């Protein structure tokens, strides 16, 4: 089928799904597990946190993620400086035994917008240490180019603020970023519902990363399925080549042979 040989390739690694999902905010690990299954995702991002020494109750997150099926993408969620992010990335590598990192350096705790300076600095350090760096950034073409120049394996501009569910706010910027970038472009954050993911893919981006839109839905498993379909639909439409827009009317039935003729 059409999507078959249309793989997403990041740092030489190939994925048949263009949807990347998170592991936060689920009512239970069981629901998360079923949502991951429904999403068809192959790459799953996880946070790095101190082991809770007082309460060791709930089992490890990894008991609910089949690492044979899903590749783990440790993230530096919650880091506000390049140093913190670098330390967190290094620890994540030890836990997951993987060089991949979803790099986040947050610049504002209210909007969770990235701090692009810190992000760039941390990217340089981690790339030198052999990491495959996927930075979460603003939808700024200049910053994306600098991240690419610094060795980022992909750039992940936000579509709208984390958890806002507003959908892609600046279609023009995302399109420009995709047009100029030499690495995969993944829209990270802002998707609220299926059509938002389709819109992003139709712009030509290489993938979409989301967490809240699925985990926060009334039925996360059904939404995960819808997102899987929407990402494939948007990608398919992008490749199929949509019709041109016109202000009005183009017949889709022949004009001759009418009774009235």
């Amino acid at each position: 089928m059409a999507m078959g040989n249309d793989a997403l390739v990041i740092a030489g690694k190939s994925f048949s799904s263009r949807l990347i999902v998170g592991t936060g905010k689920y009512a239970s690990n069981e629901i998360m597990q079923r949502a991951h299954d429904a999403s068809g995702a192959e790459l799953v991002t996880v946070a790095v946190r101190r082991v809770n020494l007082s309460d060791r109750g709930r089992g490890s997150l990894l008991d609910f993620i089949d690492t044979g099926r899903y590749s783990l993408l440790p993230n530096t969620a919650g880091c506000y400086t390049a140093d913190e992010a670098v330390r967190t990335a290094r620890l994540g590598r030890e836990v997951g035994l993987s060089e991949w990192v979803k790099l986040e350096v947050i610049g504002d705790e209210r909007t969770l917008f990235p701090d692009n300076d810190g992000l760039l600095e941390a990217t340089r350090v981690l790339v030198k240490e052999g990491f495959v760096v996927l930075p979460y950034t603003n939808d700024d073409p200049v910053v994306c180019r600098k991240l690419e120049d610094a060795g980022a394996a992909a750039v992940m501009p936000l579509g709208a603020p984390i958890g806002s569910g507003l959908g892609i706010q600046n279609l023009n910027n995302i399109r420009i970023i995709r047009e100029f970038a030499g690495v995969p472009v993944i829209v990270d954050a802002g998707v609220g519902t299926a059509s938002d993911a389709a819109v992003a893919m139709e712009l030509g981006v290489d993938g979409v990363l989301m967490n809240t839109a699925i985990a926060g839905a009334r039925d996360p498993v059904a939404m995960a399925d819808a997102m899987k379909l929407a990402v494939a639909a948007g990608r398919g439409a992008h490749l199929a080549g949509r019709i041109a827009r016109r202000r009005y009317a183009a017949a889709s039935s022949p004009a001759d042979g009418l009774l009235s003729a």
Partner: protein
Amino acid sequence: MRITLNGDPYELGEPMTISRLLARLDIDPRRVAVEHNLVVVKRAAFASTTVRADDTVEIVNFVGGGQESAP
């Protein structure tokens, strides 16, 4: 003797390797990463790395998280 473990003071008693510390804490070493005085310790070095008085140790693992968390 005390160390700082995951940000809090912790009474260690005597110097010990990271392996012993993890065992005492009942933590599976294959599921965590350890930072000793701001340096990450490879898993292979857990048995040969000793924690001493006033050291700082961080033990982390993976938890659910998609995009950055508000402090």
